[in-house]
């Protein structure tokens, strides 16, 4: 196997606060899928056959066999799969040849899981969206402290956060600063 040892932002990070837990989810790969013009129906059908659920509506994510899929734009989706395959994009390119174009995304994003009954008290000083009123299954890209962030609501008080890898150290620092001011 390769001599090159991978390391990803937030490796092994986990912290407990009074009413808030943060941890680093791992063991998955992410790829983006862009649907070829005129191939939406075909792609939607083969997607459902492969992953057992339909493509998500705008502003939502769907649970899949072995992962999730998030709507990220017109004819564009993120696919998250719990697999040990850093060539997921090539696997998908084969599976959906002619229907959609795949690009590996895993390394571009640093992931955090946040949960707890005070999660909204913290996030309201971080993300401009009305997260309290969103249903589980909400998913969107927005900003947090001038940085980009993807927010997935996974439970009433639980969220997946993805932020660009290169600025992830600053993102975590800012997030902990806000937590320090509240909890």
């Amino acid at each position, binding site marked *: 196997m390769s001599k090159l040892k991978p390391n990803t932002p937030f490796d092994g990070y986990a912290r407990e606060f009074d009413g808030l837990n943060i941890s680093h989810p791992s063991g998955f790969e992410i790829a983006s899928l862009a649907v070829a013009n005129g191939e939406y129906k075909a792609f939607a059908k083969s997607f459902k056959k492969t992953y057992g659920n339909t493509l998500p509506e*705008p*502003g939502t994510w769907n649970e899949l066999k072995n992962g999730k899929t998030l709507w*990220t*734009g*017109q*004819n*564009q989706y993120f696919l998250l799969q719990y697999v040990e395959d850093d060539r997921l994009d090539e696997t998908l390119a084969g599976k959906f040849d002619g229907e959609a174009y795949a690009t590996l995304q895993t390394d571009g994003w640093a992931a955090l899981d946040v949960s707890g009954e005070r999660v909204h008290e913290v996030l309201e000083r971080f993300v*401009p969206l009305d997260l309290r009123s969103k249903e589980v299954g909400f998913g*969107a*890209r*927005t*900003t947090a402290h001038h940085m*980009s962030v993807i927010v997935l609501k996974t439970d009433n008080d639980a969220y997946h956060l993805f932020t660009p890898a290169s600025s992830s150290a600053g993102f975590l620092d800012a997030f902990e600063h806000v937590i320090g001011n509240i909890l």
Partner: protein
Amino acid sequence: MIINHPLFGPRDAAEFVYLGDASLMNRPDPKAEDAIQQFYEYMYLRDNPAGEHRELWFHEQGDRSWLIVTRNTFTHEITKVELARQS
């Protein structure tokens, strides 16, 4: 300001980047003889109305879509938001 994205609802305009008049979508024919004059008017002249204005916004921090927003430049009231590219 708030832009009500046609696909997933209201978002703070701070997530968008403004380009200008929606007339920028009507790129002239480069093969016309008076192409330089047409491209000059297309790129440089603006109605710049004090009232209703169809304009282009890019949802940079969101879904990376281009939107045509119909907004009153005096009151800032937004009456319509459409996707630039009907998918």
